Structures are given as C-alpha cells and as structure tokens.
C-alpha cells in the first residue's frame, strides 16, 4: 500500500509540474527561448492572487479568472517588446535577458512584499482530502490541479493540432523564415505563444500558492522541476511533458520515502538517467528537413 501511495502522490505532484512546465516547453519549442524567469512569473501570479485580486473584491479562490487573462496579455506584450528585441540579437542575449528579468522580479517582490511566506487563501478547502484507505489520502487541491493540468495540456494539444492558429504556431516553430514566406507575421505568432505560456504558468503559480507557502525566491526550484519534466518527457511533446512531470513526481516521492532529503535528489537522478540514455526525452522526436 505504501508503494501505491508513492505512485499516487507522485502522480498528483507530477500534474502540477506538468502544468508548470508546458509554458516553458512551448516557448522553447516555438521561439527557442529558454525563459529563466518562468518560475518567477508563476510567483508573481501567486502574489497577485494574494495581494491584488482581493482589492477587486474577488475571492482568492477565483483569482485565476482575473489573473490568467491578465498574464496572457502581459505575455504577449513582454514577448513583442523585451523578448523580441533580445531574439533579434542572439540566443545568448535572450538567455541573459530572461535571467535579468528573473533577478529583477525576485528583488522587486522582496522589496514590496518582504521575504515572509505567503499563501493563497481558499479557506478550509485546502485541508480537505479523500481518504481512500488507512494509508492513502488524496488531497482535493492536488486532484483538482492534476485534473486542470490534464485539461490544459489536452486543450493545448487540440489547439495546436486542429486549429489554423495552432498549425501556424507549429509552422513557425519548424521554420520561421518559411512561415514568413507564407504570409505569417512570426512576431505575432511568437506573441501568441508567449501569451499561452504566461497564462498557463500563471495558473500553475496560483495552484502552487494554494498548495504551499511561497516567498519571492520560490520560482527557482520550480523552474528546475519544470525544466526536468520537459527534458524527461521530450521537447515538443505536450503529453510527454505530462508523463515527464508525473515520472519526476513519482521519483521524488520514491526518494522521500527513504529519506526526506532524497526527494530532490531522486528527481535529479531520474533526469540525469534520461538525459544520458535518451537525450531527446521519452517522447521527443528528431525531425529535421533542412540541415
């Protein structure tokens, strides 16, 4: 029963990792931007849920209704201004700019909200859980987060594979110059991809803020986990990211079972093993026409 619990708890936390990671995966897949500020954006979303949303007289539970569209807009604007300027120069500049963004965000949050721990208050709901048997408890919040992750990834998958906008995003990520020659404004397409990425990571940030206490520097470790989930699953595969997140979660729970300090270590070990044996990730493909 202990093993079943490890699997279940791992899968639940894995859903959160996948939700957190899909935006990272999308931005890397479409515009080859490794957004080092990805985790910090989630933290900003969590802070917004705690401090800004109540001012609009919206309950913190419903913060996502305001924050997700807002962050989509912010994502589009940041991409079309700051990130596009960086991309126009070179990949290294882009990495530095997102790193700089991460530092600026963390320090601004420290300055404004101090280093005290915060959490998104949704009342008693956070402690409620479904007791399967004497060992296994499934927290409602984790279950909802996993469900949300599956829903978001599924919707994103359908959007990318079935709609004309999604097709354009895939075309631009394959070959942005060729897409231009088909009449596509790739900068706008980049903006749309960033909007989706920011919206999903904002959702993940709120989920994070509900389930644990966070402080201004919480973004870094989540970025690491998201990055690991993407690499384990394979870049460019959304279901791969979900599986990667779940495997990472299970590995961490497995490590924690022996010693709480092994939690991160076990996850990192899985990440390194996958990287060594299958660098393209479990579901990654190597497709290239134009070497």
């Amino acid at each position, binding site marked *: 029963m202990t093993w079943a619990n490890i699997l279940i708890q791992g899968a639940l936390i894995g859903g959160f990792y996948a939700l957190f990671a899909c935006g990272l995966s999308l931005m890397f897949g479409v515009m080859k931007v490794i957004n080092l500020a990805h985790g910090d954006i989630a933290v900003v979303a969590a802070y917004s849920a705690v401090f800004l949303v109540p001012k609009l007289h919206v309950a913190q539970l419903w913060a996502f209704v305001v924050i997700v569209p807002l962050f989509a807009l912010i994502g589009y604007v940041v991409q079309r201004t700051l990130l596009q300027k960086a991309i126009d120069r070179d990949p290294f500049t882009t990495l530095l700019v997102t790193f700089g963004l991460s530092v600026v965000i963390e320090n601004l949050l420290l300055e404004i909200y101090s280093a005290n721990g915060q959490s998104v208050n949704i009342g008693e709901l956070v402690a409620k859980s479904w007791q399967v048997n004497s060992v296994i408890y499934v927290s409602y919040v984790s279950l909802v987060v996993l469900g949300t992750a599956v829903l978001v990834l599924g919707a994103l998958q359908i959007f990318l594979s079935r709609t*004309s906008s999604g*097709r*354009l995003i*895939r*075309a631009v*990520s*394959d*070959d942005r*110059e*060729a*897409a*231009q*020659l*088909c*009449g*596509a*404004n*790739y900068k706008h397409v980049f903006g749309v991809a960033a909007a989706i990425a920011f919206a999903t990571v904002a959702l993940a940030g709120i989920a994070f803020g509900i389930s644990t206490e966070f402080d201004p520097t919480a973004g870094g470790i989540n970025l690491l986990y998201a990055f690991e989930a993407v690499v384990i699953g394979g870049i*460019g595969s959304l279901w791969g990211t979900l599986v990667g997140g779940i495997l990472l979660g299970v590995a961490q729970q497995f490590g924690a079972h022996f010693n709480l300090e092994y939690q991160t270590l076990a996850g990192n070990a899985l990440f390194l093993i996958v990287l060594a044996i299958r660098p393209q990730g479990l579901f990654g*493909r190597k*497709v*290239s*026409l*134009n070497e």
Partner: protein
Amino acid sequence: MSSDTTDSPSAPTLLSVDHLTVFHGQLCAVDDVSLSVGAGEVLTIIGANGAGKSTLLRTIAGLHRPASGTVTFEGEDITHQAAHQRVRVGISLVPEGRRLFASLTLEENLLVGAHRAAEGPFDLARVYELFPWMKDRRRGKVFQFSGGEQQAVAIGRALVANPKVLMLDEVSLGLAPIVIETIYEVIPDIVSHGIGVLLVEQDVSQGLRVATRVHCLLEGKTSLVGTPDSLSAEEIEHAYFGADLPDNATQVQPS
C-alpha cells in the same frame, strides 16, 4: 525608371527592381541590379555559385534589406515592407532548399501557404490536380518524401497563396533530371494564368528552355540581359564565367 532593363513584351509590368544593392556584411552580394517581371512571362536569372542570385530573390521577398535601390510592385514601393506583407501584395518565393514545415503533413503545409491567400485560380484542389500523387499522400509527413516530392510541395505551398509573381530559387538543385522535368512541366500552366515567374537556375539549359527573357549575374553585377533566342551560347558563357578568363576555362559548357 527601368531604363536599363530589356524591353519586355507588351505584358504589364508587375514587379520592378531598380538599382538594387545588397550587402552581406562587407561583401556586396548584389550590385546595382535592375530588372522587371511582367504578367505571364518567365524571367530566368542565371549565374555561377555566389553570383548573388539567391540574395536578389530573398531581397525581393523581403528577407534581406537592401543598402540602396527600390523594389516596386504594381507601382507601389514595397522596399520597406516586411516579408509577410509582400506575400499579401502578391509575391511568393519558393526558397532554396525547399524549407518545408517538417513536422506538418503535406496538406498542412499547403494550408499554411493558403492562410493569407488572395483570390485566384489556385487552391488545394487545383494543386492536387497539378500534382496528382499528392491527393493520396496529403496526410503524410513531408519529411518522409523524396526531394522531388518535397520540391513539388514547396511550389504548391507558394501557389496556393495565389501570387502574381512567383519566384523559384534553384528548384532543380539536387534532383534527378527526370524529376526536374516533371517539376518544370507545371511552369507553362502557372504562366497561363498570367502569373509572372522569376526563376533562379544554376542549370542554364533548363533555365533557358522555359525563359521569356534571361538575366545573367556575375559577382553581383548584371553581365547580360536578353531573350534566349537572341543570345549565343558564347555570349552566355562569357556572361556566366566572366569575359577575362583564360582560354581553357571558357571552353567549359555552362550547363
């Protein structure tokens, strides 16, 4: 305005390029080139490797910025328009190396090509008529296709945008002669709709066969213009390789 281009037949001029100069860093890739393309004619640009042919086409498509000179389309100065805007104006480029969307199916590649399409004779069904093998394989991923098939998809992808001027960059590169034939077979069909074709070819004989007019580039400069009938093989040879080469070099057949 376009005084140094040869007189084209009565066809109305669609695209004109005037005194275009393009740099790649320090290198002057295209040096003061002027040309024009009218409706329903085929202008073939020939020249050796590095003569600036592809750069010229890419500049017309909006992928490079010229240092000086203008690109005009139907009387409108489009020199400063972005590449994606030029597609809507009516210029499509089939780029060198085909540049298909590798993770998309054949049909999806064509749909991306058609997503900003103008009104006109070409749509997916028409392209499937032009290349009948495509219909059965429209759900196939293009990276599994042969070079000739990929080239056909690239041409189809440009055609479905219904351009007024279609630019083809090295369509025969790396293809077997028999495959090149089938690719070139569609050009008369394209031209019959009044589309102007701007063709870049290293395969001179193939380029000349379909050309209404020929424009030869040598180290970025115009070295020869004329109609295929009016030019002798020797003239073309000189324009292609440069006039001041040693004797043994000029004997090479440019084909």
